[in-house]
């Protein structure tokens, strides 16, 4: 896979912690901090773990610390997939 779309990430997020009690994440939430949409630090690590597996990435610790919103994740993954 050469890039990740919002829908791709949404699919991973919902695999990690499921639909958030009826609230669907939309593109309007792209820049919203994970903590505000119900994803704690462990959930973000779980997302990172799935991304590493599906996109054959090695995500360093510093990058994880900056993955504070869906948009930050998409930007990081796409930048690094492009670099490969």
């Amino acid at each position: 896979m050469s890039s990740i779309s919002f829908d791709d990430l949404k699919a991973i997020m919902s695999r990690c912690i499921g639909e958030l009690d009826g609230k669907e994440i939309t593109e309007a939430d792209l820049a919203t901090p994970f903590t505000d949409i119900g994803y704690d630090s462990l959930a973000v690590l779980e997302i990172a773990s799935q991304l590493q597996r599906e996109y054959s990435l090695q995500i360093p610790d510093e990058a994880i610390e900056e993955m504070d919103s869906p948009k930050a994740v998409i930007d990081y993954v796409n930048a690094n997939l492009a670099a490969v």
Partner: protein
Amino acid sequence: MTARAVITGIGVVAPGQPGRENFWEMVVKGRTATRRITLFDPAPFRSRIGAECDFDPEQNGLTYQEIARTDRAGQFAIVAAREAVADSGIDLGTEEPHRIGVSVGNGVGNAISMEQEYRKVSDNGRQWLVDQGYMVPHLYSYVMSSSLATEVAWATGAEGPTTVVSSGCCAGIDAVGYAVDLIREGSAEVMMAGATDAPIYPITVSCFDTLRASSTSNDDPEHACRPFDLRRNGLVLGEGSAVFVIEELEHARRRGARIYCEVAGYSARANGYHMTGLRPDGREMGEAITAALDEARINPDEIDYANAHGSGTRQNDRHETAAYKRSLGEHAYRIPVSSIKSMVGHSLGSIGSIEIAASALSIDRGTVPPTANYEERDPECDLDYVPGTAREADLDVVLSVGSGFGGFQSAVVLTSPRRIR
């Protein structure tokens, strides 16, 4: 008058060479046992460092059948228990078996055997419907942690209250606290209490990798665990066991036992916040410290040394420093605070007991072990962490604390036999 509980025997299997005196010599000299993992090939892992025991079960006196039925964690516990019994001089054959109890702290059970046997029955992860044709006879004992208490009971002939205390990384303290409670209420006169864990194997290493909680100083494993240091970058997994003979005070006196210390106070709290996260304020750990001091009827300013949890993760060391300040006030700045995890790593459910062993020996030998690898001050961690070199000191009151996944926070207060009237 409530009964009092004293430690009269100590057995240790810690990273490096097994045995109490080997352990003590290592931590007092500030030598580290952290190294590149040898228990399996760590090449595919993010963190490839562990603090391993150089442990040969046969050389440590285990019988062939004991070795055949036990996991590495159980083997550590049997050896540590026997050393503790020998150290205490107690003749268990003359004690009432039902007045001897067992409490073994543990975090992840018989993890290595559980994983090794899984590989066989699942054909290395190929089958979900695993193949019972490849099961070993003691497989059930590997999936339960309670078999660890069974082994210690069998090794010592105990027939009193026996259990495994499994509160994650606080289990090594909680198991001792549990034993003390049983002695105080009269349910047992002698407790074989301590903890064991052997987590250095792929599944547990993967877990800490995924959480990014373990150190990645793979090029410099001897200096990887740096508690309270500004450049700390995570914990290093350890393994091992410490087991104590804990007796009711009068029982110990009647047989003229040497007393290392009294377990004067113990308490546990939970942060009720997050399974792995810590709030920076240290409130619940501070509450556990205060409650343990209350139980011991000791004022915060009587503490001579705090044996820290000091795991070397960014969040723990900050959280813990805050907890000392909350509970001890200005006195927190006046006492030495050191973490032996810099040398022996973090053996999860076992480390609390290994740290109690260090604390009891620090009272006995009048020496504060150092924090190895401490070099650069973190503005958020501004206490006296005893960098590098041990210190001689008369220690009357020593505090030891723990913190773990699930939010568990525990504290125990040990006092010198000089304080026993």
